[in-house]
């Protein structure tokens, strides 16, 4: 009997998924190629940065290359991370191990994040060399490098979440459209910032973080951590077994996040910014809550029933499925609307409510145009979102242009919640309130439509709830929600 050689490359305490992904990832040609090319280019740039006259150009190239690698190439490694496992059937085999859906997804992301970290650390000597020979702001450059890595790992979380989608074209559209738009925006920003005094991106980041002191940096870190959690938990939900209760953890964390933003806003006197941030968080949370399939596994409901009346209340907010997701999102919308109305103005609060109705509208369209047995609500949601927000919003803006130029209020914008904010901004001062009220009235149709669909969907899951109730209480009296 031959002895198997001992395999000690990674310690036991590392997650098995991270070990697997690192073993595979570090061997790929892409990683080796990127590493070698990056260093080759950075060596050349460092050699060129000697003269003061071309420092700005070299700095621009340096930023561009590092951004390309950390914020685009490395995150894109997650593009097929889960889809490949789904297609080859290996995800089934992973699911049968002790690895939870969350650990599988986290491992995929952590491997990309750690490879990015390796690359980032390998860039540090060049930053130091440029500081020694070029007199750059070392802290600013290191901070810039760190924020690029952070942006890259947040993007990696988004892309890993999208990779749970089997359809290549949908992933490609969702990934490359924002990348294209974001890339153009970032390029314009860098060009404008350079033309306006040659400020390096390092200084931009430094000034950003220094503007609010450590608080802003903490906020950025907090938001990044939440965004990573949001996208990874969204992905985990999509591959988890039907009996899992991930929605309880997810929705609790999101609620805490929104409440924290509000409290921070009140404590630091930046309630306006925090209110808008909370509204942004809310729109993502709604996407997640409204695309969960209604759960028909009795043990899921039994987990709530066994906690008495608090469990029955929690069931309405935290049980998996878009029906409870609607109740939960209504609670969050109410919270954010009241907060914005209190700290800013009633008009802005109304606009937040209308935006939420826009998201409910997409959820209602998904329910109207998909069959009851549709297991995956996220792809139609994304498609409707793209249609409504990209196509209609673009054509709507074109329609509005002649009216705006004439100085006329575009009353038709009250027909679609997505149009209303633009219509409101360009409306005649005297028409603003009427337009907003009319828009609110028309937007209310969509939560009403969704509510009707929710009543039916909730009814279909009644048998599962009853069975869940029986699992806890037997046949002795009472009934499920």
């Amino acid at each position: 009997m031959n002895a198997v050689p001992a395999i000690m490359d990674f310690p036991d305490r590392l997650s098995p998924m991270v070990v697997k992904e690192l073993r595979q990832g570090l061997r790929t040609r892409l990683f080796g190629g990127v590493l070698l090319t990056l260093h080759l280019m950075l060596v050349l740039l460092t050699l060129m940065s000697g003269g003061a006259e071309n420092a700005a150009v070299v700095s621009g190239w340096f930023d561009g290359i590092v951004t390309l690698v950390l914020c685009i190439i490395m995150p894109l490694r997650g593009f097929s991370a889960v889809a490949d496992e789904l297609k080859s059937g290996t995800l089934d085999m992973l699911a049968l191990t002790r690895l939870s859906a969350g650990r599988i997804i986290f491992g995929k992301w952590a491997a990309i994040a750690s490879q990015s970290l390796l690359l980032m650390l390998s860039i540090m000597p060049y930053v130091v060399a440029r500081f020694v020979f070029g007199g750059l702001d070392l802290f600013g450059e290191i901070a810039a490098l760190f924020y690029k890595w952070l942006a890259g790992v947040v993007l990696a979380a988004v892309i890993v979440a999208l990779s749970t989608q089997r359809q290549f074209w949908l992933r490609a559209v969702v990934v490359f459209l924002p990348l294209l738009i974001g890339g153009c925006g970032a390029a314009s920003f860098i060009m404008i910032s350079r033309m306006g005094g040659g400020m390096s991106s390092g200084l931009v980041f430094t000034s950003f973080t220094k503007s609010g002191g450590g608080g802003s940096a903490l906020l950025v870190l907090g938001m990044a951590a939440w965004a990573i959690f949001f996208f990874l938990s969204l992905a985990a939900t999509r591959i988890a077994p039907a009996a899992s209760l991930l929605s309880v953890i997810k929705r609790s964390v999101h609620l805490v996040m929104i409440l924290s933003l509000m409290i921070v806003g009140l404590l630091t006197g930046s309630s306006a910014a925090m209110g808008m941030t909370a509204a942004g968080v809310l729109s993502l949370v709604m996407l997640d809550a409204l695309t969960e399939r209604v759960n028909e596994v009795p043990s899921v409901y039994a987990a709530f029933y066994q906690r008495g009346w608090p469990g029955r209340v929690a069931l309405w907010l935290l049980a998996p499925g878009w029906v409870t997701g609607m109740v939960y999102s209504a609670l969050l919308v109410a919270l954010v609307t009241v907060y914005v109305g209190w700290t800013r103005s009633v008009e802005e609060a109304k606009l937040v409510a209308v935006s939420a109705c826009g998201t409910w509208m997409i959820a209602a369209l998904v329910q109207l145009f998909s069959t009851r047995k549709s297991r995956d609500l996220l792809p139609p949601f994304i498609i409707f979102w793209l249609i409504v927000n990209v196509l209609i919003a673009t054509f709507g803006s074109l329609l509005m242009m002649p009216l705006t130029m004439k100085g006329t209020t575009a009353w038709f914008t009250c027909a679609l919640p997505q149009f209303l904010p633009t219509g409101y901004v360009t409306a005649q001062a005297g028409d603003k309130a009427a337009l907003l009220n009319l828009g609110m009235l028309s937007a209310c149709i969509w939560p009403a439509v969704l509510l009707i669909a929710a009543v039916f969907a909730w009814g279909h899951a009644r048998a599962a709830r009853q069975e869940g109730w029986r699992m806890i209480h037997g046949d002795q009296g009472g009934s499920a929600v």
Partner: protein
Amino acid sequence: MDRSQPAVVVEDLHRTFGTLKAVDGVSFSIDHGRVVGFVGANGAGKTTTMRIMATLDSPGSGRVCMGGHNVVHHPAKVRRLLGWMPDSFGTYEHMTVLEYLDFYARALGFKGADRLRRIQEVMDFTDLTPLADRMSNKMSKGQTQRLCLGRALLHDPQILILDEPAAGLDPKARVELKNLIRILAQEGKTILISSHILSELGEMCDSLLFIDKGRIVHHGDAESMMRGTEKAGETLVHVQIAGEPAKLIEWALTAPLIKIEEETKRGARLRIQSADDATLAGVLRRMIQDGLPVLDYHREERRLEDAFIDMLGQIDNNTFKGQPPEVRSQKSAE
């Protein structure tokens, strides 16, 4: 695992995909330590049933319990008892055989020396030790299949579900796989195997489950399946004699309970209107007493494939009178 209850209980299982009824009221149970073949045409509902049993899909309705645990309510407990080998191989790029098993051993909770010991045991059992440093996606089908079996055995599961394990294997690899399954059966594992190669299933399995259009149409042992005609109280026998077969034909024409089915080169196929062993022996005794130089006398057993196709034909004509599936009546296996 509670051995007082069957290892596998499937009750009135339904699963639909859109308008397609993939599984339509499937019920059966499997006792501990049994090897059961799962037979059906493509799209009959085998893989869907197996995936539900393996907690990889949810039943539309019905109940599935593995080792006493409901697959929907307690998937984690079921997974600890279960080894699953899908029809797709499921290996990874840029990963050696040893790393592949090491990853799954880690994922199953093995640590340190315990992990190495278990990997060693599995590699010895599946004869993969010489291939430890080979890339897992660069092996032959037979080797890959052994690797996948090794992976499924890492946590020493009591129930094994093997979906088309012999598909695409050459004869040598098939024999190796069959031997491995035989050893596992001797160790007392409960094994459910689906395959298209029915003759092999007949050799390996204690009983066979036949599924067609999402329904179990037969659950019994291979022998009863192959002797399908015994149901009608008839038996086909092959007889060969030394010399001219005409002597045999002449004898058969006058013998009671015997009809000539077909004349062959050195004898004949005879239909005896009895399935009783004593009657069959009596016919042979009479042949010898009447001076026929009998060289070969054996009961004809249909090939499993033929039996299966006949059965499907009978089902289509509503004339099938086979055994109903064995369904246990326990209402709570948990």
